């Protein structure tokens, strides 16, 4: 199951002209507000008719301006989770969940009420009214309602943006589970780097209505050109990792392709897959193998690219094993180290620099 989108739509001063593929897994539409993310997801949902273009799943054309096809929203079978949950106030939680089921085509397969309520942890809320739920509970019910409509794909527009960080942490594991256990493709709109780094399998970066970058998350995040989109403080690479073992001193050892990492205790079983995000500004580079340092995590690799920005800093991309790592250092240091593509060097990361909420399991 995959989705292909190729549309153009004029919206005031902004012309949205976007083409991308969303394979299975979570495809994040990432960009600043006003970059056209919501326009794209609403066009996919059928809530907005683009000026021109084509939107299709593997099995069905949803919109094709040339062929004159424009399937109405209710026949697209795309579950939509909105930022503001949009639960129906006159129905109970159960009524809301059943509403999704009610219009699902008969004979379609998908998770049933029990599975969904168990997955989302909302079994105890069934007889409550929407107005009595917390923001996080509302959003979980909204996700359940969308799932029960047996969609061929799930659309999520900033589903966590209205929640505080505690509520976010409550929902993120459910989204990861959804991605990993149901196999349902998800188109996920977000402007949060941390969310995208943790959840997305594919990232499509939008800027002023155009696709600025697109590809697998690890690849997109390790592209020095991304620094501009993510901002200097948020830029950093995303590395797939496997939990190796938990040490008695409270550290967890992870294996990445370029070596090992020690992190403060992670709540995952050994051999579980996970993802670590290493901010470019938390990486120190050294030509010589460092000795006598307090930092525990050192990865060796080869410099692949050096990109100068406008300011005093440069972004260095290096290959460690099969992964790409970004480091942001000053131009002065880069010159002093005589860094150049092809050069061997060592990346020093403090273990504390990999924050808990940046770690997710794949």
């Amino acid at each position, binding site marked *: 199951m995959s989705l292909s989108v190729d549309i153009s739509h004029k919206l005031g001063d902004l012309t949205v002209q976007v083409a991308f593929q969303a394979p299975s897994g979570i495809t994040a539409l990432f960009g600043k507000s006003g970059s056209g993310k919501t326009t794209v997801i609403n066009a996919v949902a059928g809530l907005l008719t683009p000026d021109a273009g084509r939107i299709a799943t593997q099995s069905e054309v949803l919109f094709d301006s040339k062929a004159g096809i424009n399937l109405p929203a*209710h026949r697209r*079978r795309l579950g939509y989770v909105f930022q503001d949950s*949009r639960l*129906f*106030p006159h129905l109970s939680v159960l009524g809301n969940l059943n509403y999704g089921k009610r219009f699902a*085509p008969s004979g379609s397969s998908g998770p049933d009420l029990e599975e969904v309520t168990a997955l989302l942890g909302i079994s105890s809320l069934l007889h409550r009214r929407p107005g009595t739920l917390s923001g996080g509970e509302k959003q979980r019910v909204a996700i359940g309602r969308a799932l029960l409509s047996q969609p061929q794909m799930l659309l999520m527009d900033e589903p966590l943006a209205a929640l505080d960080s505690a509520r976010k942490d409550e929902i993120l594991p459910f989204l990861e589970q959804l991605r990993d256990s149901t196999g349902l493709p998800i188109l996920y709109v977000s402007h949060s780097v941390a969310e995208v780094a943790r959840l997305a399998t594919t990232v499509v970066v939008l800027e002023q209505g155009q696709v600025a970058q697109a590809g697998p998350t690890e690849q997109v995040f390790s592209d020095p050109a991304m620094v501009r989109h993510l901002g200097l403080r948020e830029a950093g690479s995303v590395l797939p990792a496997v939990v190796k073992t938990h040490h008695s001193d409270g550290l967890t050892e992870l294996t990445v392709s370029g070596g090992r990492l020690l992190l403060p205790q992670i709540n995952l079983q050994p051999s579980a897959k996970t993802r670590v995000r290493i901010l470019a500004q938390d990486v120190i580079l050294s030509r010589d193998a460092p000795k006598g340092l307090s930092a525990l995590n050192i990865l060796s690799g080869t410099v692949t690219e050096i990109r100068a920005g406008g300011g005093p800093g440069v972004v260095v991309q290096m290959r460690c094993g099969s992964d790409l790592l970004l480091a942001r250092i000053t131009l002065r240091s880069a010159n002093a180290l005589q860094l150049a593509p092809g050069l061997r060097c060592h990346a020093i990361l403090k273990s504390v620099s990999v924050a808990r909420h940046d770690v997710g399991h794949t």
Partner: protein
Amino acid sequence: MSTWLGPEEWAALGLSLKVGFWATLINLPLALLVSHALARWQFPGKQMLNALVHLPLFLPPVVTGYLLLITFGRRAPLGAWLEQSFGLVLAFRWTGAVLAAAIMGFPLMVRAIRLAIEAVDPDLEQAAATLGASRLSVFATITLPLILPGLITGAVLGFAKAMGEFGATITFVANIPGRTQTLPSAIYGFLQVPDGESDALKLVAVSVAVAMAALLASEMLARSAAKRINGR
């Protein structure tokens, strides 16, 4: 009680209730449709429709009654056609009183229902559509339950207006005791004859009682409906 009110008075009360009931019943689906169109649809002539719906509110009722008479009278083309095709005579019949009352009550109903529809968050209707509900299903399962309090208010306003309609009714169907004489026209009739004042007062008391009962019942209904849709 039966001695307190004479047969003519009973007939007037019965007719008023009957007219109010039928006028409300006929108006409700039509008002729902027009309110929805005015609140949610964009179409040419929308402002004209809006003006037309509200016209009876601004015209002197006697003008509305006269217009009905020259449109639906037995010798008017439309009236003659209705009589020939369906055997339906409106002028000087209780059915005409229903028509007059319905037209006079219609704008009040539309105003109440339209306000309720405009208060429904279109985002909820969109959400229902993404869950697979067709436009008709969205209306029946989301919009309609959410506007129920407004619908009740509109129905009661329309009923009260129909019960009390006087000017257009007396112009269109006259004031024939036992046939087209409603509560207000009976009161008017009593006031036209000497010594009729005590009889008029009895009917005034009946009018007040019916109005109070309708008002209280609608308040209770609307309140319980509103409680169901506030999400708590």
